[in-house]
C-alpha cells in the first residue's frame, strides 16, 4: 500500500535548483533508503516530507507530495499537525539539554496527548522500550539526556520521535556519528520499528541501505536516477550510474 506519493517535486535554493521533478512512491510499513553522493539532494527531499525546508527563507518547493492522499505542500496543510504525524531523527543526536523524561514528554505535552501524570509515565516508558533504551535508563530518567553516550542519545532521539506515535519516521543519516556497535543497535531498532511506522532513511553507507531497507532510491545531482526494491538496485540495477555508484566507481 502506498503511503507517500510525490509528484514532480522541484526544490530550489535561491537561483540554484537542488531537486528536479522527483516522482516517488513509498510503501507503508517498509523501510525505504535514499542513497547517493554528497549534495545529491537526498536530504533535501527528506526534509520536504515534513516541510522542514520551510525554515530556510530562500528555499522554494513546488510540486505535490501526497501523504494519505493529502497534499502536504498545499498552503492549507498545517505544519504542526503534519510534523505530529511525520517524525524525524537527525544526523547528529540532538536531545534537548533537559532530563531524559522531559525529552520524551515534550511531544506529547505540546500536542496535549495525555491527561495525567500516570498516562505520561506510560508514554515515556513505552517510547523508551520501543527504542530499546528503557533498560539502560530506567533508573535515571531524571538525569540530563545530553549525559548519555552517542548511541544512547540517538536512541533517545528515536524514542522522542515515536512518543507521539507518528505514521512516518524520517531518518537523516542517523548512524553517521556513531560507532559500529551503536550503529548495529540502531539498525536492529529500525527493523523493529517498521512494523508500526513507515521509515525513510537517508544514508551514506550502501551496506546499511542493503541491510535495513526493502526499497532504495538512488539520487544523483538532484535527480532520482533509479528507484526500486533494494534487492534489484544492488544486484541488478538498470541505470549505468547506479551500477557505477553501487560498485564504488564514484561518490
Amino acid at each position: 500500500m502506498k503511503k507517500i506519493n510525490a509528484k514532480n517535486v522541484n526544490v530550489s535554493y535561491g537561483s540554484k535548483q537542488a531537486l528536479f521533478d522527483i516522482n516517488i512512491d513509498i510503501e507503508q510499513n517498509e523501510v525505504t533508503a535514499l542513497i547517493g553522493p554528497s549534495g545529491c539532494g537526498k536530504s533535501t527531499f527528506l526534509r520536504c516530507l515534513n516541510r522542514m525546508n520551510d525554515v530556510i527563507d530562500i528555499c522554494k518547493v513546488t510540486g505535490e507530495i501526497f501523504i494519505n492522499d493529502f497534499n502536504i505542500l498545499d498552503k492549507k496543510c498545517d505544519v504542526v499537525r503534519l510534523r505530529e504525524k511525520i517524525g524525524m531523527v537527525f544526523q547528529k543526536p540532538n536531545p534537548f539539554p533537559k532530563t531524559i523524561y522531559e525529552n520524551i514528554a515534550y511531544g506529547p505535552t505540546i500536542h496535549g496527548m495525555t491527561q495525567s501524570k500516570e498516562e505520561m509515565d506510560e508514554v515515556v516508558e513505552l517510547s523508551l522500550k520501543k527504542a530499546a533504551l528503557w533498560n539502560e535508563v530506567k533508573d535515571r530518567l531524571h538525569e540530563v539526556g545530553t549525559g548519555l553516550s552517542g548511541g544512547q542519545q540517538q536512541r533517545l532521539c528515536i524514542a522522542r520521535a515515536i512518543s507521539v506515535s507518528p505514521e512516518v519516521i524520517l531518518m537523516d543519516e542517523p548512524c553517521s556519528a556513531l560507532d559500529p556497535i551503536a550503529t548495529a543497535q540502531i539498525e536492529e531498532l529500525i527493523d523493529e520499528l517498521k512494523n508500526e511506522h513507515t521509515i525513510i532513511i537517508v544514508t551514506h553507507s550502501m551496506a546499511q541501505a542493503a541491510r535495513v531497507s526493502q526499497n532504495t532510491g538512488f539520487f544523483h545531482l538532484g535527480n532520482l536516477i533509479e528507484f526500486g526494491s533494494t534487492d534489484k538496485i544492488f544486484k541488478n540495477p538498470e541505470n549505468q550510474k547506479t551500477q557505477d555508484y553501487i560498485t564504488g566507481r564514484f561518490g
Partner: protein
Amino acid sequence: MNRKEIFLKKRYNSEKRFKLYGKLAISFALIFLCIFLYKIFSTGFSAFQKTLIKVDVTYNSELLFLDENPSLDDIKNADYYDLALETMANLDLNADEDQQNELKRMVSYIFDTEIKNHLLKNPDLLGKTSSVLLTASDDLDQIFKGNYPRDIPEDLRRVSDYQLTVYDKLIKDEKIISKFNFSFFTRADSREAELAGIASAVVGSFFTILVCLFISFPVAVLAAIYLEEFAPKNKITDFIEVNINNLAAVPSIVFGLLGLGILLAVFHLPRSTSLVGGITLSLMTLPTIIIAARASLKAVPPSIREAALAMGASRMQTTMHHTVPLSMPGTLSGTIIGLAQALGETAPLILIGMVAFINTIPMSPMDPSASLPVQVYLWAESAERGFVEKVSACIMVLLGFLILMNLLAQIVRHKFETKWS
C-alpha cells in the same frame, strides 16, 4: 653555519622577541592599574575613619529650660544649643568670646543634636554629667589623619594656633578618638565634609539601575528574540541591525541631551530624579543587551531548533520552550554588564540635573537624588580638603559595586550556560 640554521635561529629569536613584547605590554598595563588602585586606596582609606572629640556634658535642666520631672517629649523638644555652647566653652575655662567661638568650630555644626541624641538614649542622665562623642570638624579631622600640614604660617591654615593648642591638650588627655565612619554610609551629602555620606548616592544609583533594568531588559530581549528568531532577513532588518550597533557607539552625553530635551522639556518628568536617569540610561543599555541577547540566541545550536520543530512545536513554542531559556545565561550576563556600564555613567546624569546638591535620601525613583559617579564628580569639584578622601572612598565603593556585578555576570555565564560538545 649554513643558511637553514641561520633561518631557524632567526625564527626562534623573533618568537622570543614577540613573547617579550607581550609580557612588557601586560606589565605596563598592570603597573598602571596598581598605581591607580594604590592612589585611590591610600587616599580614600582614611575616609572610613571618623575623628571624634570626647567632651563632658553636664545635662543641666536650667540650660535646657526644662521644668522638674520633664516628660520624654519635653526632653525631645528642648533647645540644646546653649548647653552645647556651654559644653564647648568648658574645654578652656579661660577662653574669651572669640576663643569660645573657635572652640565651637572644632566640632561639626550638628554638635547640639549629638548631645541631644545622647540624652534621648539615656533619659536618666538629666542633671548628671556624662562624656559624649562629638564629630570633629573636617579641618581637625584632616589634621588628626595627617592629611593637613600644621607647620605652615597661621594665616595659610584653616585651623588657628589657639585651636591647635586645645587640640594638643585634648590629644594628651586622650580625648580625641577615631572610630569606623558609619555615618559615611548612612548620611546623605552635606556641605560639611565631616558629615557628608554616600547614602543618597547609593540609593539613587540603586533606583536608577532598577528603572534602567525594568525598561531596557524586556524591550531589549523582545527585540533580540524578534530579530533573531522571527524577522525575515531583508534590507529593513539589515538597516535596523546596523542602527542598533550604531546606537551602542553613540557618546553617552548625547543620550543625556535626549533625556533633557524629551523627558524633561516635553514630558515634564521631575528633574534630577532616578526615574529620568534610569530612562536615559536604559537607552544606552538597550543596544548592549540586544547585542548580547542576539549573540547568545545565535549560540544555541540550530539542531535544537530543528529537534523542537520536527516534534511539531510551533515557531513560538520552539523559541519560548528551548531557544530563549538556553540563551538566558548569556543574555543575563550581558544585561549585568550593561547595567554595570550604566552604573558608572556620569555625563547623561549631569545633563538631566542629577548633579544638584541633594542632602536627603530618596525614598522612591520620583524623589530627587544623587548617584555614585555624579557624587564623585561633585566632591572632586569641592575645594575643601576634607572632600579629597571622600572622592577616593566614593570611587572605592563604586568600584566595589562594579567588581561585584562583573563577578556576578561571570558566575551566571559559567555556572548556568549549557556546554555544547
